[in-house]
């Protein structure tokens, strides 16, 4: 029971970016999303922020 609950919570947590991006994500947001999943285990989410900042610098 507890295990199922943890799995459900984990699925919801990991799905949150997907939910946020449901409405027409920009290219930079998609990149941020990929970075988020790549780095969620290492905790280096700062790298996603830096990458996102570089990305939106190119957006007019």
């Amino acid at each position, binding site marked *: 029971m507890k295990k199922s609950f943890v799995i459900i919570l984990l699925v919801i947590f990991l799905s949150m970016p997907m939910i946020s991006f449901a409405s027409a994500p920009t290219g930079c947001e998609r990149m941020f999303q990929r970075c*988020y999943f790549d780095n969620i285990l290492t905790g280096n989410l*700062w790298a996603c*922020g830096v*990458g996102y900042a570089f990305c939106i610098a190119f957006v007019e």
Partner: protein
Amino acid sequence: MNKSIFIIILICMLFLFGFTENHLQLITTIGSEEDTLLYRWVNVAVDEKDNIYVTDMLDCSVKKFDQNGNFIKKIGRRGSGPGEFIAPATIRFQDGLLYVSEQQTPGIQVFDNDLNFKYKITFSIPINDFHVFNENLILLLSPLKSSYFYMDKKGNIFKIISFQKELSENMFLIMKKIAVDNAGNKYFLSQFKGELNKYDKYDKKIWTLALKNASGEIKFKRLIPGMDVPEKMLYKGITVDKNGRILILVGQAPVNSSRLISILDPSGNKVGEIVLPEASHSLYCDSNNRIYVGRNQGTSLKVYKLDSM
């Protein structure tokens, strides 16, 4: 009556056009959408012979061009070894050496001006921007710390200067870019907060300025729990010309977003502005008052002569 209004508007447009042309003279263009010279250049540095070095993020490389834009050499491929990059970002030239940082990997690779790898400065702090005073005095800005750091060539941090305590812990509001003038004064631009800080060469804070060019407040979007990300970048770049004037590329403006360069004197007073012909992601001014800007998503680099005003 209508004809008079039309003529007045025409004269005004010609005046505005002339105003821009008077202050920008195209010198060189490197790359285009039709060639593969540049895939997405991010940052630029210029050596004492006016050779141009750029970091090309999509090509995982550093490229060298002469002052006329002729390709000379390239170094780099995807990887984490010496002379390899994942996403090369900031590039600086000082005393015959070229310093290159990466977007997501802490550390700075050092090359000679022929792009031969010399050594790597390793440290643990992620960096957002840096400035090289000399080989043993490098100033670092981190996206995680509301401070700036002085580091030697071995990666030892020996001095930390804290900015005034930031009200927000959001990393985007902490992120800053740096420009340093010939007298050693440091200008720190908060790209998302719209704030400019000046520190003297002794690291004493001189002034703080709330910039007013950008349109409106920055809007944030919650993409993941605990991290709100801004939808736009208010200010994209900062550089200092040979006269000590501060040039700031405005990212979001009522008109001319990413094209408007605001010019401030060393006291922070606005003394002029320039409108670039095309939008740019970056701004750099060399010691000859030539400015380097991008266009077409970084597939080309344009060099303009900045005439004195």
